């Protein structure tokens, strides 16, 4: 294991993306993710890479489309309002089956909202990244190490399934520093025979395209794409389970909120309440199997999130509403305190849930 260094989450993510072989970063400044762009601006010229500050979020994601069409690992990052602008490009990436890494360091909304941490783009990331039938793989880091590791993992998954991987972080993870190891071992690369890199006179032309005016054919494209999504759902669900073995109350929380929840669980355990945490690492696919299995033992669930209540729907769906699910939430850039989470755990522990 290599020596650890102290880095901000945004910077660790950027350095890991470079380690993954990404040489094209296209972005636009927005708080609180600007460090990613600044880091890339500093590093890319030194390694023969491209950092480009685009004229808009929309242009940036379309430049990503261009780079990815040429078969190269491409990345952009932004924060909530900027990600909304990228929706068009996200849909085209899906429609063209192009891989890309898109980072959303979330801030409070809607509208211009605020610049403090938030998790209110859960629906955007997992439900409606853009128009049409499609999904993105959504990874939720909770440490600076995971900010780095998931950049690597994100590129690998994106190439493997020809999908967009979105890293859904928040201002806390982007701005905080923790010790991080930048030793990532072997990084998988994938052949891209579909890339538009010039025929070189040796083959029929490749076409990167999402247009199909023949409904039966477009439907078939969608069906084929969803078969790939089924593989992702079967193979890639990930979650961390923390003190769930004997837990009566299971909290579900991701990212920075999961860290707050761990503090609350320690406090609950000190009071004799058997509480545990399932921390989804993939938000799409949501770790339904793990959450569903937990419902067999737990009496009640608490969805802890920095939104008005978005992920709670996936918790309820995963357990088919077989147990009460309470919401512990703050929004607008407010972060729940361990005390607030503890109060919900205590409330949940008094609920029935017996079969």
């Amino acid at each position, binding site marked *: 294991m290599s020596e650890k260094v102290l880095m901000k989450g945004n910077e660790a993510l950027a350095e890991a993306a470079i380690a993954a072989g990404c040489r094209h970063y296209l972005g636009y400044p927005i708080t609180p993710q600007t460090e990613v762009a600044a880091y890339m601006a500093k590093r890319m010229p030194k390694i023969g890479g491209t950092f480009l500050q685009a004229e808009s979020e929309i242009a940036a994601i379309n430049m990503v*489309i*261009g780079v990815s*069409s*040429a078969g190269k690992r491409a990345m952009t990052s932004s924060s909530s309002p900027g990600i909304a602008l990228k929706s068009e490009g996200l849909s085209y990436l899906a429609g063209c089956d192009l891989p890309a890494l898109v980072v959303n360091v979330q801030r409070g909304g809607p509208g211009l909202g605020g610049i403090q941490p938030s998790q209110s783009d859960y629906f955007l990331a997992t439900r409606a990244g853009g128009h049409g039938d499609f999904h993105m793989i959504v990874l939720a880091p909770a440490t600076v190490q995971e900010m780095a590791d998931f950049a690597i993992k994100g590129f690998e998954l994106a190439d493997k399934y020809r999908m967009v991987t979105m890293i859904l972080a928040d201002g806390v993870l982007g701005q905080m520093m923790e010790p991080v190891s930048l030793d990532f071992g072997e990084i998988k690369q994938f052949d891209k025979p579909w890339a*538009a*890199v*010039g025929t070189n006179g040796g083959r029929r*032309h*490749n076409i990167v395209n999402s*247009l199909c005016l023949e409904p039966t054919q477009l439907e078939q494209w969608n069906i084929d794409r969803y078969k790939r999504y089924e593989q992702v759902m079967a193979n890639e669900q990930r979650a961390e389970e923390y003190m769930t073995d004997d837990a009566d109350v299971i909290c579900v929380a991701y990212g920075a909120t999961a860290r707050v929840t761990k503090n609350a669980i320690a406090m609950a355990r000190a009071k004799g309440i058997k509480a545990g945490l399932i921390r989804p690492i993939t938000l799409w696919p949501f770790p339904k199997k793990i959450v569903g299995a937990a419902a067999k033992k737990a009496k009640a669930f608490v969805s802890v999130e920095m939104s008005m209540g978005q992920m709670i729907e996936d918790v309820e769906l995963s357990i088919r509403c077989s147990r009460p699910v309470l919401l512990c939430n703050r929004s607008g850039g407010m972060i729940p305190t361990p005390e607030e989470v503890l109060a919900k755990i205590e409330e949940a522990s008094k609920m029935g849930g017996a079969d």
Partner: protein
Amino acid sequence: MANTVFQKPHALCDVPLHYCPGCTHGIIHRLVAEAIDALGIEGRTVGVASVGCSVFTYNYFECDMVQAAHGRAPAVATGLKRAEPNNIIFTYQGDGDLAAIGTAETVHSAARGENITIIFVNNAIYGMTGGQMAPTTLPGQVTQTTPYGRDPQYAGLPVKICEMLSQVDGATYLERVAVDSVAHINQAKRAIEKAFRNQVEGKGFSLVEVLSTCPTNWGKEPAAAMEWLRENMIPYYPLGVYKDKYADEKGGSK
């Protein structure tokens, strides 16, 4: 054995085009393909199709093609070029795509001096959606969304892309041509080839604006449409070179 005196350029696919009778896209496609052939760059050329009547150009050129979202072709081209700087990247865009929804991408790819080639087809109307006002629709011109004629007091005035981009320092070569006559088509051919050659030589951003007809949505016979272009569009959009950074060099503009 008979001599072949005329044939399709290699870079143009041997498929029927979907365009309306009298539409000049076919001519412009041919000119682009001829330029690719002349420069011998088909194997390393990647085209970007835009949204509009020309959306299917990805089926018409033998080179690799990428289909871009409405207005975003210059951004996609930027990505393609930055990923593979030795490849030759061109976009083929209409007036709605380039001069309305994609204005920012157009201006800023020029400002960056991206070493790409843009073929801008200006026919003063939205064709694919059925004849609505374009940013280049002339004052008084009747369209589906200006049924009483474009009223400048109400709907504003047309955008002149070559004139506008000539003020952008990053742009290298801007020329407006037309395809209404043999003489003009020959000039268009020279301009398009030059726009590609500039890229091969690493000279930067080149855009050729091609004044074109839309007989169907203009509601005119093809010949009458050509006449209308000559009488109405050319006076408003004068032909010529609007910028040529390398004009003093041999092979610079006329």
